[in-house]
């Protein structure tokens, strides 16, 4: 499985309140939430994001609340992968559980710039910045998490057991 798209770049500690502000949490509908994704730090995101695009951020992406609405909003906005130096742990779980591909890679997170065209190969963990020609090796998931991801999320994984 591969993801390929243009990059939206953010810094450290992107929290779930800016990914999807609580004033929109009265709806659990992913497509509704996606309309307001990243609104409080980047009003252009929703206008410019295209299917397959990639978010790249620095450390502790997704810190704060446990709202699954955050990875859901990102997924439903069309984002194919989030690359970060590190992820906050609840966001990490939630992304795996709902089938939003994420990958930890400090080198890629620091080197990739906004607007670059990036390809991620989930089987090998290789991240390629097609704009600069650089490539990076991301942190592979433990086998157990790979099973959840390849099942398409935790619900399917449990159904298969």
């Amino acid at each position, binding site marked *: 499985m591969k993801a390929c798209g243009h990059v939206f770049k953010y810094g450290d*500690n992107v*929290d779930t*309140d*800016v990914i999807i*502000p*609580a*004033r929109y*949490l*009265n*709806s*659990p509908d992913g497509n509704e939430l996606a309309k307001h994704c990243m609104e*409080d*730090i980047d009003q252009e995101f929703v206008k410019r994001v295209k299917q397959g695009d990639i978010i790249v951020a620095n*450390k*502790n992406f997704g*810190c*704060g*609340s*446990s*709202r*699954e*609405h955050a*990875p*859901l909003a990102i997924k439903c906005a069309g984002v194919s992968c989030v690359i970060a130096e*590190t992820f*906050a*742990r*609840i966001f990490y*779980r*939630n992304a795996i*559980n*709902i089938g939003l591909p994420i990958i930890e890679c400090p080198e890629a997170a620091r080197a990739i710039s906004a607007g670059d065209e990036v390809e991620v190969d989930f089987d090998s963990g290789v991240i390629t910045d097609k704009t600069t020609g650089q490539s990076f090796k991301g942190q592979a998931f*433990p086998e*157990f998490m790979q099973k959840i991801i390849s099942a398409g*999320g*935790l*619900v399917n994984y*449990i*159904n298969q057991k």
Partner: protein
Amino acid sequence: MGMTMTQKILAAHAGLPEVKAGQLIEADLDLVLGNDITTPVAINEMKKMTGQTVFDRDKIALVMDHFIPNKDIKSAENCKCCREFACRHEITNYFDVGEMGIEHALLPEKGLVVAGDAVIGADSHTCTYGALGAFSTGVGSTDMAAGMVTGKAWFKVPSAIRFVLTGKPSRWVSGKDIILHIIGLIGVDGALYRSMEFTGDGIAHLSMDDRFTICNMAIEAGGKNGIFPVDEKAVEYMKEHSVREFRVYEPDADAEYDETYTIDLSQLKPTVSFPHLPENTKTIDEAGEIAIDQVVIGSCTNGRMDDMRAAAEILKGRKVKKGVRCIVIPATQAIYLQAMKEGLLEIFIEAGAVVSTPTCGPCLGGYMGILAAGERCVSTTNRNFVGRMGHVDSEIYLASPVIAAVSAVTGKLSGPCELGL
């Protein structure tokens, strides 16, 4: 190699003689928690699962607390969805208007969590129950759905940071100041994926409410959980609130910790987190001149009896400064009632504050105290992220109930010495 307190609880719930940091395990759960924001999403996920029934109707707690009494039509629909689900599955511990409280104040009060438990909750502040010597951690709605159906959750066994608390805190220093100091020390990702285990002779000086506040904010340092040893105070609390048997786990003498911090509580000063991260801490005497528009005293962090009493001690016989809105939110119905019996509500109202029914409300920018552009709030809540309480150009200063109450009186961020205390 020995195990930490958290590792021992996880091993027991996974049916294993021992576990190691980094090991993936499946643990049996004693309680699965959700609220009016996260439960509807979990219910949707549960509908996709083949086994659509709950594993144990007594081991699920659903607390309507974020946007209730319903703030708008969509919130009303969410609560209706939870209510119907609770009715259909005969959920024993469903708490709606009239019985509810803010979940993390309510569950210990109702005796639903005791020492030795393993608890997940679809709310990041589920880590609060570590104060009772339980393993509890926040998860998302899909984990909640899986937990409700299977009674299990997968965990990566965490390593731990040990915080040795020594000495006695001075008069105006509370659990809030201690945890803000720690977050300032290690940063908002300082405990990422790890446990924060508290120990040391200083713990004897901390009330249960102080400990709930400290564990509540473990997540603000990125922690998987925070946990206290079970001492006489914790046992007394559990006997008073619960009929359940509890199990005490102590860390092995040779348990391994990634890091150890020793903190002399007697040296701490009231501490404030400046916008827009909990790690941006300053002591109150370094705060400078910060004029404010609003004060919020409440939340799962600081809406308990200790907090109500501390705020009332300051506000008694004083007035909230004209131009400042002071909003007091007791965290549960029982706390509300107790505050009424002790005359605290009268003190708040006489001072010019408003008192609200229990709700998470303003903490996450829901309602009951939203900020306009350029406004500043001193709040006893747990997060001061951009836009958390309203407009993206508003500011939140996180502090203890004492600092919040003093600031309400002076109209600026300030400590008790400003009032000659």
